[in-house]
């Protein structure tokens, strides 16, 4: 059954998804408002990256609906999916720059693939995007010559090249030093404010992402356990929310992966 959902730019309704018989989502509901920064947070292994892959149509839910700008992603043909993705940008955890192309060609890549713009205009757009992320001077460098933070900024310039309506950030701050982290955070905020695009940020850097997000979702056990403005989340009484926001080892989300009794295993009494 096709379901239209025009209110939010992305609407996730009753999504059930499992992989290799392991349930990931069980009745997930999320609304991503247009033109805002929405943070999706949660402990490791809760399926945040899987959620992004569902939104972009790289995966299909077992049940439920994922609508992007009113259209159900799971019923789209490959051509329709590609048409939708042309209006989206995605920043991967590692940047995912094309290693055989230099910085300029990486940013120019979507323009060359999807438009017939003259070379002069492509050059203008690429340099403008690189300038926006502060890396115009690296235009002739290869991806292998860039630091992790720089590679992510170039990837951000590439994701903006087609002036998308939505930019999706997958763990944009993971492994960055405080300076690079601050730069990326300011860029996300500035791009959102200046261009009016919708930003979806998946992260577990609670304080940093909370400082720029308009609304946040906290996921655990395949569902949303709390949502609202970041300050509302920190006041939420739910023990899972409290544990995550305060970064406590003890709580409803176990630190240890389930296994046999520690003492029994150390003493060799567990059949392995």
């Amino acid at each position, binding site marked *: 059954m096709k379901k239209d959902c025009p209110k939010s730019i992305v609407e996730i309704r009753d999504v059930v998804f499992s992989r290799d018989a392991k349930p990931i989502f069980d009745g997930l509901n999320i609304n991503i408002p247009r033109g805002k920064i929405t943070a999706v947070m949660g402990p490791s292994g809760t399926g945040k990256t899987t959620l992004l892959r569902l939104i972009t149509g790289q995966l299909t839910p077992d049940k439920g609906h994922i609508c992007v700008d009113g259209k159900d992603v799971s019923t789209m043909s490959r051509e329709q999916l590609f048409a939708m993705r042309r209006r989206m940008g995605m920043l*991967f955890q*590692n940047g995912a720059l*094309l290693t055989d192309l230099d910085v300029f060609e990486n940013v120019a*890549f979507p323009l060359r693939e999807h438009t017939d713009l003259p070379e002069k205009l492509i050059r203008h757009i690429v340099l403008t995007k690189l300038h926006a992320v502060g890396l115009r001077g690296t235009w002739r460098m290869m991806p292998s010559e860039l630091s992790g933070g720089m590679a992510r900024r170039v990837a951000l310039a590439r994701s903006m090249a087609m002036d998308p309506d939505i930019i999706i950030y997958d763990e944009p701050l993971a492994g960055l030093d405080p300076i690079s982290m601050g730069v990326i955070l300011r860029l996300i905020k500035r791009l959102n404010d200046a261009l009016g695009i919708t930003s979806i940020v998946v992260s577990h850097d609670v304080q940093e992402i909370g400082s720029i997000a308009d609304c946040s979702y906290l996921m655990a056990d395949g569902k949303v356990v709390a949502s609202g403005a970041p300050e509302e989340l920190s006041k939420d009484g739910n023990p899972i929310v409290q544990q995550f926001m305060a970064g406590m080892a003890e709580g409803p989300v176990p630190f240890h992966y389930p296994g046999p009794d520690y003492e029994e295993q150390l003493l060799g009494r567990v059949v392995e």
Partner: protein
Amino acid sequence: MKDWLCEIRDAMKAFVRTVGELTLFFINIVMYTPRTLVRRPGLVVKQVFNSGTMSMTIILTCGLFVGMVLGLQGFDTLQRFGAEEALGTFATLSLVKELGPVLTALLFAGRAGTALASEIGLMRATDQLAAMEMMAVDPVRRIVIPRFLGGVVAMPFLAAIFNMVAIFGAFIVGVTFMGVDEGAFWSQMHANVAVADVAQGVIKSVVFGVVASLLAVYQGYTSVPTAEGVGRATTRTVVTTAITVLILDYMLTAALIG
């Protein structure tokens, strides 16, 4: 006994599934090949350089020594019958019809095939293919097809160069070292090697080019996105290409000889 049967059944199912996937993959490549040739000829030329020109060292070196060994062995065998002047014919027919296309395909799998598989596999492991999908660019059309076509175009030329160098190697050993008459070497070759013999080798090198390139890009594209997965894909490229080329060689020889 039951477990053993189950394992055979599972292996057969996996084999049939892989053959089916490979066939669909090939059909997908063939469908979009004309468009790639028209829209992205530059990418194909670049891959002809990567698969062809970059393989020249191994082709020239191996070709020369294969020819030299053929010259030695051929002379040793033919002189027993007093027919050492037929060395040119012997070496050329062996190379053009059989050794040239087969050995070039095996060397191609080892040099260019592994490079293709590991490059595409690493692109998958580092999310470059996923990034292309997200930019609404089909990785099969942008990455796989130019590399496949590059291999297909390069293989017959590599086989031809291998044959030329190897004949030269046989000439050096036979004429220069063993004293076979130079005129007899070339004239016998000219008289006894027909266009049909050369055509047989050309047909084989084209077929092997398609097979070696297809298996390399397929293994890379379907590799598990880990270091181990890329390593396995690279190994599988060489193993499957070697087996397939040798089986196909027998089938083609049987068909072409009639």
